[in-house]
């Protein structure tokens, strides 16, 4: 394959602009992968890799991904928080790439919370 150039970036820009004009580009879901030292050491990077692959494969441009630091439950890492707009955040524990794929397909795309992997509902409060 030929090396990418800045012109390729321009083509991508045009393509994305066309897609954006067809529908509103609002963020429907925010997914936070906790990336503290504990998270990374227990596999958060692989979890995030699989999430990004799924988003790309599904063309799910309304899913916003972010990373955050440790929230203090290091023994339950990798942790992932899924926040669908107007719903309470769901925290998943002991995640791995396969669980992440399942959560993406069932919860993020179809709205079914994957109860067996859930740690808690709601946001953490730091005292």
């Amino acid at each position, binding site marked *: 394959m030929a090396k990418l150039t800045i012109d390729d970036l321009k083509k991508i*820009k045009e393509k994305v602009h066309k897609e954006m004009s067809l529908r509103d580009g609002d963020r429907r879901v925010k997914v936070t992968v906790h990336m503290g030292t504990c998270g990374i050491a227990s596999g958060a990077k692989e979890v995030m890799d699989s999430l990004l692959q799924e988003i790309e494969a599904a063309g799910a441009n309304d899913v916003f991904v972010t990373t955050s630091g440790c929230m203090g439950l290091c023994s339950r890492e990798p942790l992932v928080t899924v926040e669908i707009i107007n719903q309470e955040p769901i925290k998943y524990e002991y995640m791995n790439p396969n669980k992440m794929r399942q959560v993406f397909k069932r919860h993020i795309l179809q709205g079914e919370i994957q109860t067996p992997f859930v740690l808690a509902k709601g946001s953490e409060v730091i005292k």
Partner: protein
Amino acid sequence: MLELAAHILDIAENSVRAGASLVEINIVEDEKENLFSIEIIDNGCGMTQEEIKKVFDPFYTTKKVRRVGLGVPLLSDAAQRAGGNLELHSVKGKGTTLKVTFELNHIDRQPLGDITGTFIILIAGNCDTDFLYRHRHNDRIFKLDTRDIRKEIEDIPLNHPEILKYIRQLMEDG
């Protein structure tokens, strides 16, 4: 952590949490000098001299949610095991520079690992921060600056799947 890319991800995430708007990652692989070095420079909130001394202590952290801070001690240990060391310079309010060196051919040096994936995760998870990646392998240099990409794509966010795909391919071709 079994690969250096994971350490880089960890330290660069610290830079983002320190409020950096630009994080520079410089990697050097020099066979002639038998040197492998990683430098991470940020313009975040920086640290006081007191804090710098404590950073190497695994029982020191700025976080309130737990009582250990292992990121820097783990990387420092990985460097010492491979004939290198870790240096940290920081100015409060200006930013922090971390430089870690290894003997390139040391049997205990961890492999670099998936640096492309690490860079993609940093961009995807922190789309308001800019990243500059420079990788020198002997005489060959690869450079990627998200500010250049941002200028081209204008209003499209840096973490759009199509843009991430472009960056991944650019790095793999690198």
